């Protein structure tokens, strides 16, 4: 095509951008490798302080007694369950808009951690429910919302495991994550509505804003420790995922290299006519 006229327009192109250059996993592995031991140490310390405050400093509740201490695990777990969904939604935007490889890694690493903490929240909530409500499960609005969040996490993880090609899987999961993110407030709202329609009013509300400062500070420390510890776990998981992809790429390369050593098949022209590619 000699002397391309100005009418020529690119149909599609992939040009280098700042994001492409920033998305270098080598850089990520370097700084995360330095950071991770310190973060581990710091979150362990914070967790020790938080647990000490929760066990020995915070007073037992005048109504619930010692069982209120479940709250110090339950509430941070619930927060992390939501926190990691938020992290996944941001990563999903990174995957879809900038096609940033690390965004996909971050999203994939966050899903099992978020699901695990949501499960912890459900289990502790259920254990807390037994002494408080006399039964392990009550269709309380908050527990129900968390259950649905857990189911959405399960769906996302299942979708990942179904699609073989990592790039396609990343895209599909990112779309579903964002659809879920739009839906979560609606689910929360509708479950609250449903709950007020059906729930007997006698049930004791958990937590609430009227929490006493003597319990609030240990709880805040625990939430901070959980956030830091969860983020550290996330970094670990991201490093594992980067390495897993490197292994995949190297394996494919090795297969290509070995394939090249083998004599070529008969030239294409002698193949039967109309053989599909």
């Amino acid at each position, binding site marked *: *095509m000699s002397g*391309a*006229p100005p*009418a*020529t*327009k*690119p*149909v*599609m*192109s*992939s*040009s*280098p951008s700042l994001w*492409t*250059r920033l*998305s*270098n*996993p*080598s850089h990520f*592995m*370097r700084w995360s*490798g330095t950071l991770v031991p310190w973060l581990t140490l710091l979150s362990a310390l914070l967790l020790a302080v938080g647990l000490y405050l929760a066990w020995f400093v915070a007073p037992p509740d005048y109504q619930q007694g010692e069982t209120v201490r479940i709250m110090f695990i339950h509430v941070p777990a619930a927060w992390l369950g939501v926190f990691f969904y938020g992290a996944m939604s941001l990563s999903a935007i990174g995957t879809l808009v900038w*096609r940033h*490889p690390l965004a996909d890694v971050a999203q994939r690493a966050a899903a099992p951690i978020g699901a695990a903490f949501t499960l912890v929240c459900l289990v502790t909530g259920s254990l807390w429910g037994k002494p408080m409500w006399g039964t392990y499960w009550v269709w309380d609005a908050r527990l129900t919302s968390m259950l649905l969040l857990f189911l959405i996490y399960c769906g996302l993880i299942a979708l990942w495991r179904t699609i*073989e*090609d*990592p*790039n396609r899987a990343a895209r599909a999961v990112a779309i579903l994550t964002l659809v879920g993110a739009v839906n979560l407030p609606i689910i929360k709202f509708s479950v609250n509505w449903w709950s007020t329609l059906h729930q007997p009013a006698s049930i004791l509300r958990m937590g609430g804003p009227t929490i006493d400062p003597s319990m609030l500070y240990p709880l805040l420390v625990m939430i901070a420790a959980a956030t830091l510890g969860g983020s550290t776990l996330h970094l670990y998981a991201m490093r594992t995922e*980067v*390495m897993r*992809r*490197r292994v*995949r*790429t*190297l394996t*494919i*390369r090795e297969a*290509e*290299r070995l*394939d*090249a050593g083998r004599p*070529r*098949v008969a*030239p*294409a*022209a002698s*193949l039967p*006519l*109309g*053989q*599909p*590619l």
Partner: protein
Amino acid sequence: MRLSVEELACRRSGRRVFTGLSFALRPGEALAVTGRNGAGKSSLLAILAGRLRPDAGQIRVADVGEASLPECLHAVGHRDGLKAALTAGENLAFARALLGDARMEPRAALARLGLGHAHDLPVAYLSAGQRRRVALARLLVCHRPLWLLDEPTAALDVASQALLAELMAEHRAAGGLIVAATHQALGLEDAATLAIAAPEPGLDRPSPTPDRDADWRDADVEDWA
């Protein structure tokens, strides 16, 4: 319409299929894409049809106004895009309404392919060769300047292959473009040939645009210890 492709690279499931493909087509020109099975002939056509994202490189079209590349082309491949429950005529009428720029009536197009009798038959009743001819009749019911043909002679008998060669010659005479992935350059003897070879393993040709998966490959080994 003119089409130019520069330094196109394709990767599927992390596997490099081809790198550095370039070609340009002017009105009336055709390109026969050859290569061994798995070399990426279908992948190249899928990228041109907009179904697959290229790993690197550029595709440019000119002289087509505001239309995007997928709106300028007909693609006929081994998935024929026909609904078995609908009649041949209904399938073509649907394609005609969907793709726009209608030309021949479905009945006339089928007659041209020697399938006039099949107009009211459900496609499920047709043989593989007849289905392929119905799919080829789609080329005639709407006008699209670029034809992407993936193994167009598959399942066709000799007479139909000659007919296809005739149709391609007419299309090119009217200024149309053809990109055909084929083992048999029937009717495209005068066309340029693009042979896709497997990329040399380990020897990554320096690409003008960075390759997404290079990030995974090039990370220093020491980082992983």
